[in-house]
């Protein structure tokens, strides 16, 4: 072999694995600082009103308490609310912690106690008393939907529903087969295992080093600089490890504000770490009500599609998701009407949570399609094939690639779908009813402008660097693979540096775009270094590569080798010496192709097949098998890629059966704010999950042909499981999660 075995496409273990299994990996609350003080947050007890009085003297009297911050003594911060707008803020007025006496939601931070030790701060916080003048609040979307509205200002990156086509209502009324349903899901909270925390290190001279739980260090950097009137040069954000994000760390959260405020005021390093119950006091996936109406011919061909959705947002920002557009992307009959509205609630602003809007909208359309399959007697997979779209009719564009047909076929084969008996309640083993269900999944394949730097040194070591994050997704590993392949190096000879705001510019890590974007940027920077290196090699006297072009050489084992004549080669070190340098560095920016953006649409697809076993007497549901067939372009690392999809499936299972934040609408407060009562799957809930990657070649979506994998695993999973529950029990449960009480209810 001329080349080393490529790392790209190979199942490499995580390069950050050793740090993570030995406890060496440091997360935001684990950085030390001399003379560190500890902040503890006090949360509001009411959902709406004003703080009439706040009594802090007992807390201040506790020995070791340094300062109690409230709206009454908050140090000066930016005047304009727009200064609080972070990179991904939705339209509106961002929440400003301790800004004034107004309370916008239950759990809002109303005081920060800073003390010499964590225990003293916690104890002193318990002594703070607030009196409120309360106002009427509304936290129930079912009531607030009466005042729902079309967001007047579109959120960046969110496409409003496409315009109606034909006459959906008339076509529905005239259709031989009709299904109609209202599909709901409860609010959900991200609950990454690591609570949100910020350690702010006072470096003296007004300089700060910040360790924040964030999915984009430069977003926190920009926020801190803007809110506190600092130069970006004085704020460095370094967050090498993030203990799960799932969207909760896209926007800077209030603990960052509080920790920075206290640090500047006290001129002393401060850490603020939220408690688990405070993890329910900021962003969440909003409750959603979807109504779907499908009209079809007896053979299942759709003639009409109507999908309306309403979601909650806060009083102060118009958070928005793409919910209904997926329906007419997957299926596009002649008559279509879609709508999307939001309604104000007295909660914090919802935020992006793994595949925001997609499992929401897809659960509705894909359960409705399942209902149509039973109404027409057409097999659910066949029904989808009969209504398959080969273009993005919403945007009137070609797809860069769409191997969803192959997902259906391969997924069905691996699952054994052909053995399914179509009638509900027709499969049983002992006291358990068995159900098989399936659904499709789709998520947009984004690429975002990203910069990266590559540095090659005389010793044959390479460093690649960009400010992006690794929230468990495998960024460190894939960037290492890309760098190693560019120079034919071993993984051990390459270091990926990320999550430091001083590194080349990167957007937040979200939307499944990091592999495509940061990957392309690192690749571009490496290519630039290769060209310089090749140039030096050619300047050598009697260069073995004289007359060759860079396309004619391969990089292997620390050498540039002429592909057609491997006896002609130059080592990296020889070339650098010829150039009189001991390092070569290049920074490049990778941007999405304008041609692709204007002419094409890019999506990742999946077909999910699920088996459930339902104990009819106890109403317990076990998801015993899932096959998720995914078409996501090029797979950089099958090992970490599989993990991404596995995790997504567990999230989908959770949305289908477990996860739900209950609201006490009398108090306007989330009730189950701990992870004993907020159910997420445990190991015993998760059985066999098979991930199939469908071959998909795509030379347009991104320079590396990568589409991204962070979200697609969840998208179709809840609907596949809900459809399996119907197949097992004959009960169509349209409210997620499908809990025991709903299964046992007489009518569903």
């Amino acid at each position, binding site marked *: 072999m001329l080349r080393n075995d490529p790392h790209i496409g190979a199942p490499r*273990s*995580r390069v950050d*694995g*050793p740090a*993570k*299994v*030995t*406890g*060496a*990996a*440091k*997360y935001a*609350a*684990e950085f*030390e600082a001399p003379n560190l003080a500890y902040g503890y947050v006090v949360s509001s007890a009411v959902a709406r009103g004003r703080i009439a009085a706040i009594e802090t003297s007992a807390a201040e009297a*506790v*020995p070791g308490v340094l300062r109690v911050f409230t709206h009454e003594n908050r140090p000066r911060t930016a005047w304009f609310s727009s200064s609080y707008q972070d990179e991904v803020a939705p339209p509106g007025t961002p929440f400003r912690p301790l800004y004034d006496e107004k309370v916008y939601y239950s759990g809002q931070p109303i005081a920060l106690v800073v003390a010499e*030790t*964590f*225990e003293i701060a916690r*104890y002193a916080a318990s002594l703070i008393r607030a009196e409120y003048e309360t106002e009427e609040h509304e936290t129930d979307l079912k009531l607030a939907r009466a005042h729902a509205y079309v967001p007047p200002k579109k959120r960046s990156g969110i496409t409003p529903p496409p315009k109606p086509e034909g006459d959906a209502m008339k076509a529905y009324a005239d259709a031989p087969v009709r299904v109609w349903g209202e599909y709901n899901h409860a609010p959900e909270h991200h*609950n*990454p*295992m*690591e*609570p949100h925390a910020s350690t702010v290190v006072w470096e003296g001279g007004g300089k700060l080093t910040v360790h924040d739980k964030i999915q984009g260090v430069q977003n926190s950097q920009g926020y801190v600089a803007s809110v506190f009137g600092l130069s970006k040069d004085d704020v460095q954000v370094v967050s090498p490890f*993030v*203990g*799960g*994000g*799932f969207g909760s760390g896209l926007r800077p959260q209030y603990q960052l504000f509080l920790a920075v405020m206290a640090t500047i005021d006290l001129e002393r390093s401060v850490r603020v770490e939220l*408690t*688990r119950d405070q993890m329910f006091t900021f962003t969440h996936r909003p409750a959603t009500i979807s109504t779907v109406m499908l009209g079809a011919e007896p053979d299942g061909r759709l003639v009409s599609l109507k999908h309306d959705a309403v979601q909650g947002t806060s009083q102060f920002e118009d958070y928005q998701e793409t919910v209904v557009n997926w329906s007419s992307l997957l299926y596009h009959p002649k008559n279509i009407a879609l709508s999307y509205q939001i309604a104000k609630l007295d909660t914090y602003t919802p935020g992006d949570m793994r595949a925001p809007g997609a499992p929401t909208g897809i659960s509705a359309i894909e359960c409705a399609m399942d209902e149509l399959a039973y109404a027409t007697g057409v097999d659910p997979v066949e029904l989808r094939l009969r209504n398959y779209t080969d273009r993005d009719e919403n945007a009137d564009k070609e797809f860069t690639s769409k191997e969803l047909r192959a997902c259906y076929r391969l997924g069905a084969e691996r699952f054994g779908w052909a053995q399914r008996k179509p009638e509900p309640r027709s499969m049983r*083993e002992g006291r358990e009813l068995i159900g098989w269900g399936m659904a499709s999944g789709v998520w947009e394949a984004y690429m975002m402008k990203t910069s990266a730097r590559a540095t090659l040194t005389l010793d044959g070591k390479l460093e690649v660097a960009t400010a992006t994050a690794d*929230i*468990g*997704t*495998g960024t460190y590993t894939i960037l290492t693979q890309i760098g190693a392949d560019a120079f034919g190096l071993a993984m051990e000879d390459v270091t990926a540096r990320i999550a430091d705001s001083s590194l080349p510019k990167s957007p937040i890590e979200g939307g499944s775009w990091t592999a495509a974007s940061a990957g392309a940027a690192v690749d571009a920077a490496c290519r630039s270094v290769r060209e310089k290196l090749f140039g030096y090699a050619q300047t050598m006297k009697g260069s073995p590569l004289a007359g060759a072009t860079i396309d004619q050489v391969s990089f292997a084992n620390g050498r540039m080798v002429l592909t057609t004549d491997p006896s002609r080669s130059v080592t990296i070190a020889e070339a650098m010496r010829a150039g009189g340098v001991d390092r070569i560095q290049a920074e490049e920016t990778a941007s999405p192709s304008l041609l692709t953006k204007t002419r094409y649409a890019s999506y990742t697809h999946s077909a999910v097949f699920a088996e459930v076993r339902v104990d009819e007497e106890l109403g317990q549901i076990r998801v015993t098998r899932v096959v998720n067939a995914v078409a996501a372009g090029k797979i950089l690392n099958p090992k*970490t890629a*599989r*993990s*991404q999809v*596995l*995790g*997504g*499936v*567990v*999230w989908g299972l959770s949305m289908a059966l477990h996860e739900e934040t209950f609201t006490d609408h009398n108090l306007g407060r989330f009730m189950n704010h*701990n*992870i*004993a009562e907020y159910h*997420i*799957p*445990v*190991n*015993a809930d*998760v*059985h*066999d*999950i098979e991930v199939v990657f469908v071959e998909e070649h795509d030379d347009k979506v991104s320079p590396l042909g990568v589409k991204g994998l962070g979200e697609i695993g969840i998208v179709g999973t809840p609907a596949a499981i809900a459809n399996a529950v119907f197949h097992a029990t004959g009960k169509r449960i349209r409210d997620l999660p499908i809990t025991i009480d709903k299964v046992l209810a007489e009518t569903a």
Partner: protein
Amino acid sequence: MPDEVSVSLTINGRARRLDIAPWTSLLDLLRLQLGLTGTKKGCDHGQCGACTVLIDGRRMNSCLQLAVMQEGREITTIEGLAEGGRLHAIQAAFIERDAFQCGYCTPGQILSAVALIEEGRAHTRDEIREYMSGNLCRCGAYPNIVDAVVDVLAAGGVTMKEAAA
């Protein structure tokens, strides 16, 4: 303010005598006073297992243990598992099987797995799932965690039985 109490205990093989405020949890002692941040705080309520350590060989949630109650006990944290720079078999298996993503629950999962293997009561994949269910993983790495435990059991000569249907 409460007076500090003097406690003698062994952490990762090293005998220590510490003056500890009685309201300090073992978890906070490890993380905040001793710099052993490999033990993670996920909930501080004994609900998630991220803070699992071995106390006299048994797996325990260190957030539910007061530090002053550990007199004379031997505590093993994730930092004390690898010997002389060589990873413990279960640490290596976690890397090989990609049994983690963000890594935050991982130390707790690993210590729980070490204890489970020592307990000698996991003979099927279902039993592993059940006995590892005190450790939440939000990234959803559960199937890979089970694979990692199976690998280490197999290397120790334990073969998995098929679970009863």
